[in-house]
Structures are given as C-alpha cells and as structure tokens.
C-alpha cells in the first residue's frame, strides 16, 4: 500500500510541473461529460413528460376498448360490459375552443376509473363530489391556465356554454382539460357517446368481449412505447448523436493529453520499474490516478451539463412542440441515475482514451531502445492501417445505404460515413502534404511540408475532431437552409388567404361571416374546419378546404391526378399529406377508409401535398363534405381574400366589432412571420449544439497544439541555431497549422454536403416522412470555411505566441549534452 502511494505521489508530481497538461486533460473530460450529460438530461426530461402524457387517464399505457369503425360508440356498450364483469371506465375525448385556443377536452368517470391508471392525477374523496356534482370542475395544468391568462376558479365560455370552474392539477399534461364525462358529452355535443373504455386489472370472471359487444369494439393492448415516444425518437436520436459526437471530440482531447503525459513520463515509468515497481502495480496506480481525475472532472462536467441542459431546454421544448406537439415543462428535473451515468461515462471515457497509453505502460521494456522514434516507418504503418479501416467503414456505410430501410440504418450510414472520413483524413493530408513537398523549391518550403507530415500523427486526432465538427456543421446547416428555403416557398402557398380569423365559438363565427358578407372589400370568405380521427392506428387530422380558386391556384401539390381539385368537390376524394402517404405507402389512385362520426368514410386519393412541421398525418377534403361527416366540429376558423390596401382597416374593424385580439385575427404577413419564428426556433437547439461541437473541436486543436509545442522544441531549436529567428519560426508554425486546417476544411465541405444529403434523403424521410429538395449554399460554405480558419487561428495563437516569445535559454536546453 505504501509502495502504491509512493508511486502515485511520483506520478502526480508530473501534473504539478505541467499544469497546462493537467488543465487540458480536465477540459477534455469536462467538455465530454458536460455535453453528453447535458443532452441526456434533455432526453430524460422529455421522456418524463411523455410518460406523464401517456399516463393521463389511461393513455397508451392502459389496455382499452375502442370502436371497430368510427371514432365513437354508444354508451350502452359500457353499461353492458360492466354488467358482464368487465372493469371498464368510459372516456370521451374531443376539442373545444376557449378564448380562441383549441384544447383537448377529456371526459372521465372517476368512480370507475381503474386505480392502476399510470400516475394519473388523483381526485381525492373530498374533491370527488365537487368534481362530479354541478357545476363540476375542470382540471387543468398550471401551464395551460397561464396560457389562457385565467385564474383558478374562473369559468370561461366555450360555444356559448359556461364551463365548470377551472381547478389546477399540477401533474396534468398542458393543453388538456379534464371534466366529468357527462359535462364532456354535453360540451362536445355527443350525448351518450364514448371514445374509449379503459380496462382495469381487477381480476374476476368476465364474459368474452364478442358475446357482449359483438364486433362493435376492439381491444387495444397497452403499449410500452407511447405515440409521442415513437414520434420523437428521431429527435432524441439526433440529440444523442450530437451528444455522442461532442463526447468523442472531448475524448480526443483527453487522449492527446494522456498520450503526451505518458511520453513525457516514460523515463519516470522506466525508473520506477527499475526500482522494483511491478508492471501490474504501475498500471493499477496509473488507473487509480486516472479514475481520480475522471471523478473530479466528471462532477464538474455534470454541473456544466446541468447548466447546458437548462440553457437548451426552452429551445428543445420549442422544437418538440413545433415538430411533434409534445409539451415539455420548462423546468429541469433530474433522476439520480443521471448523476451516476454521468460519472460512469466520464470514468469509462477517460479509461477508453487512455487505453493505448495504459497498454504501452504494461508492456514497457525496462531498457529504452537506443534508436530514436522511427516516425517514418511508424507513420506509414499507421496510415495503411487506418486507411484500411476507413475503407471498411465506407463499405459499411454503403451496406447500410443499400440494405437498410429504417431511421436507425439512416443514422448508421451517417456514423459509418463520418468514421470512414475521420480515419481516411490522415492519408488525405499525407497525400496533399507530399504533393506540396514535391513541388516546393526553397529549403524552408521543403521543410515546411515535410515537418507538417511529421506532425500529422500528433495532430490527426484534433484534425479528425475538426473534420467531424465541420462536416456536421456543413451538413446540418445545409439541411436547415434547404428546409428553410423550401418551407418559405411552401408557406407562401399554404397561407394564401390575406386575413385569418378565429372566432371564439360557432355563434360568433356566424355573426362574423354575416358581417363580412356586407363588406365590399372582402373578396371571398374561405371557411375552414378540422376534425381529428385515426387511420391505421395513428391519429390524423382531416382538413376541410372550400372549393375556391385560392386553393386551386396556390396549394402546393407534390403529385396529383388530373383535375384533382374538381374531383375533391363531390366529397369522395382526398388529398393526402406526404408523411401520411409515405407511412401508409399511399399513392394517387389508392383508396382509404377514414373513421368518421357516422362510420367509415371511403375516399379516393387524388393528390399528395407537402405538410412540413406537422407531427400528425393529414388529409384534405372538401369543406362541405367534412361538415357533413363530422357535424360536431367547431367551425370557427376562416380565411379572407382582401386587397392588401384594405387589410389594416378590416382587421381594426373586426377587432372593434367582435372584441377579437391579435390571437384571433391576423393578416398573412403576421402569420408567416410567426410561422417563420417557430421554424427558426425549432432549429435553434441544433444551431447551439453545432456551435458547442465546433468549440470543443477548437479546444481539441488548441490542446493538441499546446501539448505538441513542447515536444516540437527539438525539431525547432536546430533551425533557430542555424539562423531562423523565433519570430520566423512562429510564423511558419502558424502557417503549418493553418494549412493542415485548410486542407481538413476543404475535405470537410464535400463530406458535409454528403451528410446533408443523407439527412435530407434518408433521415428526414424516415423521421418526419417528408423529403426536401437539396440546395447548395456557397456563401454558407465560405462562411464555415472562415469560421474553421478562425478556430484554427485562435487555437494556434497561444502556442505560436509562446514560441515567438520563447527565451533562448529554453531553446539552448535542447543542445545541452546532459538532458
């Protein structure tokens, strides 16, 4: 034990003499742990929210009975099943409008509600009576209450009906209102109708389902994965990929710092071995030292990760809301597993990064070889080995691309591609630098290229990190810009009306329409409506479009049958959103059965349209047909065609006459600006992670250069002795770093475009169901090249300044005979 402590003390003394190296090691571990655990905290937070949503009065976590056709079924079936011994509880679900906001209304029957329905909000005995007896209560999440700008106890109106007083239920999902089922049936105008029956786990004899309900109901088994989890998997996979990338980039720093410390401590390790410390003891102490450092760095990294997650959470929540309609609260709550996992990943990462050095220490020969390190031969072997691995990775990427057909295989293509590119980078640099050396005329030029080649093995990990960070930046930026350009064009088509109005209820909508018909400046009133239903087990929206030239001329269709808009008119045809068409493999000419209030509605697919940003599948049908099939839906939305000059006056008049606010009436420009703002916010988390990754790559380059700077002195001192000034040497060193960074950047650009293509053509299609056109943005590539060069310049600055200002004594020491 004493020997181990002495050995540890000797090893630790290295860090006292090389504080910069220690800082490098800790920075690497802290960045790796912080970014990884930050991303994991975000994922965990989102999953907690999905669980909460899933458990809301029996989401997908509870077995249930639903109508075999149509969206609702008679309440009598519930009574029949209870009598037959089934422990079922009724639920009715629909949408209502409060203050112009569309909210999910859920009617429950608390007495029969199974006790094991997830972590559903409990309604205590005391409050049960007030919940069930008139006027009842309407449970609401605090976030929703704040959103509605109402206080607890308030009684808002919906479609002219006074609602029960609002009561806060902290665990409830935002956007959901819970009332007694009788109230829900009345509000949704669905007397004696139910959406589903939750099945409790109470044991007991029960008659077979078919004997009680015939074929009217079907059983839906509980699902471990919620709809939201399924929908958002791609988003979290994307976040995890970013986290992993940052983690590996951080480990590159650790690897370079540990590698250098090992080389510098080689004589000490030999001396310790010569003094009788066994190889095993030496390794145990080295591991102990590393674990101690990883533990300290891991804890700091976790705290940083917490702050990163806290800073990114609002953007992540906005992205999830924008893309999937998922509601994530803005406050971070973390489980103990997160802390343990963070520490574990820090320790494992440090051990992985130190694996090579530890193996070398285990096999360390007691006597140092007389020959200097044969870098030429070693480099050739290393380049050949890495290039072979790179080719294998590229082959893997090709295999995944050819045979894979899932989101995971899409990410596997990306991962293999990036791994291959990172591994082949040293060979690309070696070839480029060799060409430079071949054509160099001046001796300093020859040395410039030759020495850059020699430095490759020391810099390659940092350059790989830079390559990966840049490629991801180019790829993601190109994808986002392509999406943005497509989205804006698409938005122009979709928001074709000049003014959008959302009445508080149907009565007000009637009044507004009557008033508008009298206004000469209103060229057309385009009523809108939307119904929710299910298709192939997943929720979809049915959108009603009036038969009007505005849609025929502007609505962007990706594919369509001849006279598609005319075929829509009779009400037996539909346009299908791209993501729904891809999911159900629908094409023009196919037929679908959509559950409607009176039974299934058979529709011919006459066109496919882009519907970016919508987590749900959507179909568009004739408006009149929609209101016939779904008579209960609110008809409060409408678009107006108005000459641009008349818009401000009309909006003012609408506000004044009907008490509407900015949320209920908006012109096209405002709607577009709002949609664009939401779109941009959706990608702000990606932009932030992009910046983090690039910053970590910059740190990796800086730490590599700093650690290399010391071992470079024996190469630079003879040049100084020969008559090249320190300033000249510093400039040459700077140019060398900049040149390898430039070659890496040039290699990263096509790689990044390939990444963008993979994201657009594979990942997006699998994750969201839409394929976007690929656009090239030369200015953006130029900008990223500039950023990369600035990062390389910033990373080189410190070592270069140190070299330029280095005291001659430090350089003379290289020539000292007793080194």
């Amino acid at each position, binding site marked *: 034990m004493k020997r181990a402590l002495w050995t540890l003390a000797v090893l630790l003394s290295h860090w006292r003499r090389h504080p910069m190296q220690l800082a490098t090691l800790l920075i690497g571990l802290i960045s790796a742990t912080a970014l990884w655990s930050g991303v994991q905290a975000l994922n965990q937070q989102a999953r907690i929210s999905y669980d909460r949503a899933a458990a809301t009065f029996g989401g997908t976590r509870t077995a249930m009975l639903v109508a075999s056709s149509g969206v609702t079924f008679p309440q009598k079936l519930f009574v029949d099943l209870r009598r037959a011994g089934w422990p079922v509880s009724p639920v009715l679900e629909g949408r209502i409008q409060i203050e112009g906001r569309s909210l999910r209304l859920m009617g429950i029957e608390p007495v029969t509600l199974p006790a094991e329905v997830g972590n559903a909000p409990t309604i205590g005995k005391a409050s049960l009576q007030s919940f069930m007896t008139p006027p009842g209560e309407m449970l609401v999440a605090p976030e929703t209450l704040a959103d509605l700008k109402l206080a607890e106890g308030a009684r808002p109106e919906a479609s002219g009906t006074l609602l029960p007083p609002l009561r806060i239920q902290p665990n409830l999902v935002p956007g959901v209102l819970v009332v007694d089922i009788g109230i829900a049936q009345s509000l949704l105008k669905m007397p004696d109708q139910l959406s589903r029956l939750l099945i409790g786990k109470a044991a007991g004899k029960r008659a077979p389902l078919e004997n009680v309900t015939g074929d009217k109901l079907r059983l839906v088994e509980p699902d471990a994965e919620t709809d939201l989890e399924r929908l958002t998997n791609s988003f979290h996979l994307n976040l995890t990929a970013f986290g992993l990338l940052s983690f590996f980039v951080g480990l590159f720093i650790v690897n370079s710092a540990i590698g250098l410390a090992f080389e510098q401590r080689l004589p000490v390790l030999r001396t310790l071995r010569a003094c009788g410390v066994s190889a095993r003891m030496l390794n145990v102490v080295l591991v102990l030292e590393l674990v101690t450092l990883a533990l300290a760095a891991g804890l700091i990294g976790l705290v940083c990760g917490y702050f990163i997650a806290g800073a990114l959470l609002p953007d992540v929540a906005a992205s999830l809301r924008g893309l999937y309609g998922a509601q994530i609260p803005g406050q971070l709550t973390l489980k103990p597993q997160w802390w343990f996992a963070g520490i574990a990943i820090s320790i494992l990462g440090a051990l992985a990064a130190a694996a090579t050095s530890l193996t070398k220490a285990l096999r360390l020969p007691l006597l140092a070889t007389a*020959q*200097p*390190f*044969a*870098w*030429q*031969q070693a480099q050739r072997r290393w380049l050949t080995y890495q290039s072979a691995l790179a080719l294998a990775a590229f082959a893997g990427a090709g295999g995944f691309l050819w045979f894979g057909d899932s989101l995971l295989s899409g990410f596997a293509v990306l991962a293999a591609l990036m791994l291959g590119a990172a591994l082949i980078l040293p060979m690309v640099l070696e070839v480029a630098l060799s060409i430079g050396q071949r054509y160099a005329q*001046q*001796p*300093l030029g*020859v*040395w410039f290229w*030759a*020495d850059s*080649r*020699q430095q490759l093995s020391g810099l390659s990990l940092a350059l790989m990190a830079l390559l990966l960070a840049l490629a991801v930046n180019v790829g993601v930026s190109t994808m986002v810009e392509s999406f943005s350009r497509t989205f804006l064009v698409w938005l122009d088509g979709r928001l074709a009306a000049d003014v959008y109005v959302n009445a508080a209820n149907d009565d007000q909508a009637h009044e507004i329409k009557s008033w508008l018909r009298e206004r000469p400046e209103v060229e057309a009133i385009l009523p809108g409506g939307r119904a929710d239903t299910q298709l192939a087990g997943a929720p979809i929206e049915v959108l009603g479009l009036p038969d009007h030239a505005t849609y025929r001329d502007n609505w962007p269709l990706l594919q369509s049958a001849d006279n598609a808009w005319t075929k829509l008119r009779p009400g037996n045809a539909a346009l299908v959103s791209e993501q729904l068409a891809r999911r159900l493999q629908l094409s023009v000419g196919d037929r679908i059965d959509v559950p409607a209030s009176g039974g299934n509605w058979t529709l011919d697919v006459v066109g496919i349209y882009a519907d970016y940003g919508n987590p749900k599948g959507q179909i568009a049908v004739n408006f009149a047909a929609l209101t016939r099939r779904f008579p209960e839906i609110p008809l409060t939305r409408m678009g107006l065609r108005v000459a641009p000059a008349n818009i401000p006056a009309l909006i003012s008049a609408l506000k004044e006459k009907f008490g509407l606010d900015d949320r209920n009436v908006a012109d096209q420009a405002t709607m577009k600006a709002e949609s664009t703002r939401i779109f941009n916010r959706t990608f702000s988390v990606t932009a932030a992670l992009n910046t983090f990754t690039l910053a970590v790559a910059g740190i990796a380059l800086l730490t590599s250069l700093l650690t290399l700077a010391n071992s470079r002195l*024996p*190469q630079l*001192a*003879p*040049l*100084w*002795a*020969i*008559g*090249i*000034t*320190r*300033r*000249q040497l510093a400039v040459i060193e700077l140019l060398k770093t900049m040149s390898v960074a430039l070659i890496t950047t040039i290699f990263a650009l096509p790689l990044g475009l390939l990444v963008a293509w993979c994201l657009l053509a594979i990942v997006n299609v699998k994750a969201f169901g839409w394929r976007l056109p690929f656009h090239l943005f030369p200015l953006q590539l130029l900008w990223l090249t500039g950023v990369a060069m600035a990062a390389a310049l910033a990373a080189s600055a410190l070592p270069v300044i140190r070299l330029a200002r280095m005291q*001659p*004594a430090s*350089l*003379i020491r*290289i*020539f*000292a*005979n*007793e*080194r």
Partner: protein
Amino acid sequence: MTKDSPSVTGPVLYVTGLKKSYRTAGEEVAVLRGVNLTVSAGESVALTGESGSGKSTLLHLIAGLDAADGGEIRLADAEVSELSDAERAEMRRDRLGLVFQQFNLIPSLTVEDNLAFQSRIAGRHDAAWHSELVERLGLGRLLKRYPEQLSGGQQQRVAIGRALAIKPLLLLADEPTGNLDEDTADEVLALARDLVARSGCGFLMVTHSARLAATLDRQVNLHAGVIA
C-alpha cells in the same frame, strides 16, 4: 545562386573579458569570469574543462544563442554582443557552422535535404562543394534516407556536412563525438579536421576527451571561469 565565401585570413574569433552569470535557486553563479580566446582561420582549437566549467556556455555565447553579461565577442568584423536578435540569426545562418552532440538533424528531411538545408537558406549553395562534402563524408548512398535510418556516426557526419556546406568562418562543435564509440569518434573527427582544413575556416571544439583534444592544433582549458 551562390554567394562568395567570406574570405578571412588571420583571427576569425576574438573573445575578450567575457562574463556570464546565472541565477540558480536565488543565488548568482558566475560561470565565465573574463574569458579571453582567439581562433584563427584554418586553426583547430580544443576547448576542454571539467563538467560545469562553462564550455558549452562559452560556445553558446560565441554562436549568439545566448547573451553575455560583459566582455566582447568579435566574429571577423562583427561585434556579436551589438547585434540584434535577427542579426545574430543572420550571422549564424551565413557565417557559423554548428555541430552538437545530439546531432540535431531535421527528422522530417532526407539526408540530402538536411545537408543542403543551411546553405540553401543562406543562399550560399555551392553544388561542387556540396558534392565534395557528400563524397568525403561517404554519404553518397545515404542521401535518400531519413536521420532515423542512420547510425550515430552517420548522423554526425551529416551534421558536420550541413555545418560546413555554407563554408563558414568558424565551425563550433559541442562534444560532437560524445555519443559515438571511440573508432567512430576518431573517424568523424578526422573527417571534420580534413574538411576544416579544406575550407579554411576556424574550428572550436568542446570536448572532455584529452585524446581527441590532442589531435587538434591547440588546446585551451577552461577552469574556474577563465582560460587557464
């Protein structure tokens, strides 16, 4: 393009009253206490002395690698202590040849490029002289190799060739045979003496070996900070 080799007859190096101290552990240690030394063109001088006597320090000061606290160093017509950092670099590049015990070759360059490196950056490359050096140093078959692929003796021959390729006024060598076995050391030193005589430059060599020192024209011993 080839510059003419600086032609100097008589003394190439005057060192007068040279002083240098170092501060170690808060204490001032005087290494050189007034050194006087002259080396003439074509003359080879061995600088001996016990470890820590300041031999290497004296060599570094003459080469302009370090600055003296007092005294004068004159290389031909140039007063070294009056030169700026850049001018001292220029002096080393154009007028001095330096050889170290650790060889200090450039590992990323081949033998051929190492040999021609200094003469080319000094703009003093003389192809005929270069060929003669290659032949006399026996490096003809090693030109495409890298330093790591050479033995210690071969590496030191390359280092001597590099230093002499510019036809320096003065060749300074700090224990050039310290890493070599006796036979190789004799062989390398014989080559160095031969080439120094051929180029006509002055030669100042730091050595611990009395045997090797005896093979040079003159020996000076540094003791207690002065030439004894």
